[in-house]
């Protein structure tokens, strides 16, 4: 099933992936062209989907998921979309927007899977979405620790 990687029923599988990542951070960086693709995808998702954030995160999640579905075969674009999804939900969590906790866990799992594939670190990915990277990276690492 082509949507299987987004199915919440298999979320624990991805969370396990996150645990693995936490245990051993990859060390190979993205190439410049890959970085550009990731940043461009995150920016595209930002423009299309952040405005959907309102009473809850549902419409935002729908929007990001639609973008991810565009690229069924894993590629750097998916990483950009998923990371924007993660940051969007994490940001919504700071003011406890309804369902932000659920979607943060969801995109953390999706992002971790893709980060593993591309051997990319949190710090490297962070600049693709505006915000305070030291705080965000600390929060993401803290979330991974809590999942263990």
């Amino acid at each position, binding site marked *: 099933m082509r949507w299987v990687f987004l199915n919440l029923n298999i979320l624990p599988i991805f969370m396990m992936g996150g645990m693995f990542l936490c245990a051993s951070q990859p060390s190979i960086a993205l190439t410049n062209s890959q970085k550009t693709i990731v940043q461009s995808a995150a920016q595209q998702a930002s423009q299309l989907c952040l405005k959907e954030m309102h009473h809850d995160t*549902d419409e935002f999640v729908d929007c990001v998921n*639609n973008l991810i579905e565009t690229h069924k075969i894993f590629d750097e674009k998916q990483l950009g979309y998923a990371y924007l999804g993660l940051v969007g939900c994490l*940001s919504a969590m700071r003011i*406890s927007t309804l369902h932000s906790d659920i979607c943060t866990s969801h995109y953390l799992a999706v992002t971790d899977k893709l980060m593993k594939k591309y051997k990319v670190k949190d710090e490297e990915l962070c600049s693709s979405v505006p*915000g305070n990277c030291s*705080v965000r990276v600390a929060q993401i690492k803290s979330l991974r620790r809590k999942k263990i």
Partner: protein
Amino acid sequence: MPINKKTILFCSIFSTSLLTLLVACGPFYNVQTTLFVQGIGAVGAPLSNATVKLKCSDGGSADGTTDSSGFYSIGVVGKLPCLVQASNGSVTYHSIAAGSGDGVTVTANVTPLTEAIVNQISSDPATLFSSFNATAATQLTTATIANAQTAVLKNLTDNGVTLPTAVTNLIGGQLVASKTGNGNDYDKLLDALGSKTYQVKIIAMNDFHGNIQSPSSTNGGQVTLPNGGAGVKVNVGGAAYLATAIKTLKQSATNSIVVGAGDLTGASPFESSITHDEAAIDVLNQLGLEVTSVGNHEFDYGRTELLRKQNGGCFPVTGDFGKVGVDTCFMDVATGTYSSTGTTFSGAKFKYLSANVLDTSTNKTLFPATYIKRFGPVSVGFIGLTLKGTTTLVSSTAVANLSFLDEIEVINKYAQALKDSGVNAVTVLIHQGGVSTATTVNDKTCPVSFGDLGTILDGLSSNVDVVVSGHSHQEYVCDYTGAKSKKKYLVTQTGFYGGAVTDINLTIDPKKGVTSWTANTVPVIQADKNTGVTIPSAFQTFAKDSTVDALVTSYVNVSKVLANKQVGTISGNIMRALFTGTTNRDESAEGAMGGVMADAYLYGTPGGADFAVVNPGGVRADLTCATGVSPPCPVTYGQVNTVAPFMNTLTKVNITGAQLIRLLEQQWEAPNCTAKINPATFQYGRLLQVSSNLTYTFDTTVNAWTSGPIPTNCAAAGTGKRVVVSTVKINGVSLDLTKTYTVSTNNFLGIGTGGDNFTVLAKLGTQAVDTKVLDLDAMISYFQDKSPVSSPTPRIQKITSATASP
């Protein structure tokens, strides 16, 4: 008519004699007499060559001009009190002529301080002047004017201004204005006022949505504070805590005002919504809110209801609603707040602003466009707007005969007018906002995608200083440089449900306007609900305010009585269509709860209908048995309200069978295929929830979504062919394409332009009748009469790729 200075003495003697004669003649002394209003216009320096206008209580008016010393004297046939307006093209000030002097010659100086006096009496002196009449004049009593002057003098003292002992009468006292510092004490006071700066605190909130109780920790009740690491979560919100936070902030400043940026009511929790948000209005009154823009949710229940919120009056009697002391009118007449024996609703003490909302029948704004708050010698003007797109967010009946204008043009127009009237700082209160990717509050790097608000900011003029925003339920404090003006604006938003306020501090130079600012989000951290949490030193906690706490408890108790009232039973859980493994509604599918709602529509429609349809977004909750309760499970009023919270009204519309097919095809024809999508099933669209007597099959393989950021091969409007026409039946009888059927629906779908892309009913339907029966009332009647209610069998069948014929 203007009378020149040289004739003053003669005229004064003549008119005094005339007055004496008239008084001697008995009852005729109340006839109009010629008054002479004179004084000095000054801002420190004389207000020379300024146009002076008089308007008197009986309609009498006259114009004149100040000379180089700022002196004016104008004769007018009219009756005191009169308002005076002096303008030199760059500033406009007002004053009051109300009986000082000998009764015929009245002194009315016109200065920033007389403007402040008038502003104490009216938040908008310019409007008071332009609409001044006998009714408005009744508020200009001797006591009112004296109290206003006392307040102005006290405010000057509070701002560190030393008042000369000789200056006691700002309107009628002697004023010798000088450019060179040779004036009298009053003039020196004006000079001194212009030579210092003043601090003004704006305490801002938005999207309160009637959350008088603390919001849940998963929905607005927690924020993440920066602590140098990953942040720390704290519990926030609740009106009782919010009241203390606001009081604390106000006590820290000489000059302050509490403002809002819309959606303070509407889409509210039951404890407020059941009182038609009178509870929230009462609480906001107690919080000291002074002015707010209107948001889209303030229009949820229409213009008449919104005007009632401002002006007061009980909710009109309809069905189970409109019962004094039960769901409306809890206020005591004398105190204007809740009383167990209350019988009235006196409305919001704060002012709604709607600069860009016009009543199309009068071409006037629904509420005032602006509000001016004066702090000693400086003033801040507020412009209130809602987003232009409000018409797409609420029922068309709710905004009938209202037009929502372009925000940029409106803001720039009123900002100019405010500056022209001498306002020192302009703050826009707008219900439109950006979205942040910050992960703690108060992230001053401002990682915000401003979207539509950014477009507005980029078009603003340099007259604007601060933009307090809302709508997107976000939190940010940003400096934003406008593309057009190249000016830096302060742009804020403070989250939602009262979890925080924004503390904005402006430094205002009377001659230069806003010279600097500081601003911070202040989370309303509950002092007693964060045990063991280390609160970062930059933040403080707040205890409950006992008065507001008691007020909230009173309204919660009111709501409990109604919420716990049993209206029927269910034979098991009745669920909406949900995305797998979530509680998120799936609008692309049929759900049991939607079916029950449609059945209730049909049941409650006066005079009946052939079938009923409900928009899927109108079905807001499931009905479930409480833990440990065996069916039949009781259903309460409160539960049914969560299913149908919008106060929609049942609407009857006639359409043909062919038009019904078109209506059903519109389920998958949202522009650019933007209808809802279930990513697990690949179904897209908004499936109307239908009553039991309408059944049909649709073919999901026709115009099926395949892939892409948006589906690219769904049907364009008017071309869909998913419905299998031969399967459509009404009461088991095949649809007759030429026959006319009566549809029961709600005003969201049936009136105006039709919501959620369903235009057939509203635009093609005939004999549309808004029955005014609330859908909630229909639901309650249905449960009262049909219990136990069970989950219905599906009425809609799907042909999928698996079931389609090869």
